[in-house]
């Protein structure tokens, strides 16, 4: 879906305004939201892809009207509600009224180092050879996914060139929707600026995305 998260090439957001003194967190609650989101991941109700999708499913008004961690907090509430780990009544009242579903999966403080230090690799064994090779000309699909996808709309339906093969990776489009990992070959694909933006492109510029095999077709 072309949701509020799909920002590449859109106008109106103002200057970048980098500020070297800007802290990583602007309030205590932002720290808590980061930690709470990562801790809740261990309950195993959702994948990383589903949590990204929960953020982009906020309305454009909510997404653009919220701070970064404000988006995270709203998405976390929605994930916990959707998976039944909290109820709307509990959220409204602030009082527990339903039993937890997976308290046995609560992340202990002793697990933090290994969870953060190991991460969760998404490369998987391939079941078929890669369809494309570096140097191949490809065209991205014109299809607008109705659900989660990692094909940005600015790179939809465009000709590009494969520049690298990253391996075989979990497909977010299915993994975000409880349809399994369905791993696919993942490619770095380069698009000259003028292909994406026409005469507005800066000379000598290009953009690269990582594209799963089903995002691509031959030219």
């Amino acid at each position, binding site marked *: 879906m072309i949701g509020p998260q799909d920002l590449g090439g859109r106008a109106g957001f*103002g200057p970048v305004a980098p500020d070297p003194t800007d802290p990583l967190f602007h309030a205590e609650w932002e720290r808590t939201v980061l930690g709470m989101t990562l801790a809740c991941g261990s309950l195993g109700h959702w994948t990383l892809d589903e949590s990204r999708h929960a953020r982009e499913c906020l309305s454009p008004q909510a997404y653009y009207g919220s701070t970064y961690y404000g988006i995270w907090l709203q998405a976390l509430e929605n994930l916990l509600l959707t998976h039944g780990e909290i109820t709307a009544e509990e959220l409204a009242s602030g009082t527990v009224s339903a039993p937890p579903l997976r308290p046995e999966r609560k992340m202990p403080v002793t697990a933090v180092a290994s969870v953060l230090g190991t991460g969760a690799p998404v490369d998987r064994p391939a079941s078929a050879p890669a369809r494309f090779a570096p140097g191949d000309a490809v065209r991205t699909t014109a299809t607008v996914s109705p659900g989660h996808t990692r094909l940005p709309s600015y790179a939809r339906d465009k000709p590009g060139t494969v520049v690298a093969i990253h391996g075989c990776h979990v497909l977010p489009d299915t993994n975000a929707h409880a349809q399994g990992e369905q791993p696919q070959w993942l490619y770095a694909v380069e698009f000259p600026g003028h292909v994406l933006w026409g005469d507005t492109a800066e000379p000598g510029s290009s953009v690269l995305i990582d594209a799963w095999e089903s995002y691509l077709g031959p030219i």
Partner: protein
Amino acid sequence: MHDHPHHDSPHHDHGPDNRLDPMEARTRALETLLVEKGLVDPATIEAIVQSCEERIGPRNGARVVAKAWVDPEFAEWLKQDATAAINSLGFAGRQSEHLAALFNDAETHHIIVCTLCSCYPWAVLGLPPSWYKSPPYRSRVVIEPRKVLAEFGVELPEEMRVRVWDSTSEMRYLVIPQRPANTEHLDEEALAALVTRDSMIGTGLVSLPGEAAQ
């Protein structure tokens, strides 16, 4: 509370009294609920955040860059298999499971972005700065990278190629900036001290102290 005049948020004009901040209240409400239900441990939350603040950060990336500058064999490994080369220095983990290094040279300048969310190589750069996560950078750097670089004070030669890497998968990119001239006398540690976070995102260059740069 910090002072943050350029924050990307519409909700940052709250005063120092956090009891008045609705986001603070909303966060505490959810946290209390989850703690009471036995689903999260406050000590775990704190340990996660502390780890993100202390274990990871751009000093890790700077060590990778400096080593690549002084050790051609390591540089080659980094080019071929950045994940393994970087793991060998002890940097690994969440948001850095699959790494690739992008070497700037005289012809090409690399920049990283995540237009769809905020993907960033945590293990080597730490948590991303606000501007990296916010709509202006995410929307603009893919269509007008040089204009964005100018806002960082970076001017590239006209003939230099600019390649913008949009982090759409779990691959995480680390830019290896060009080593500044006249640094033959510096050792790896001194070199690492020159390497800024922004130079590893691609929105900065590395220069010697006192020289004009970003």
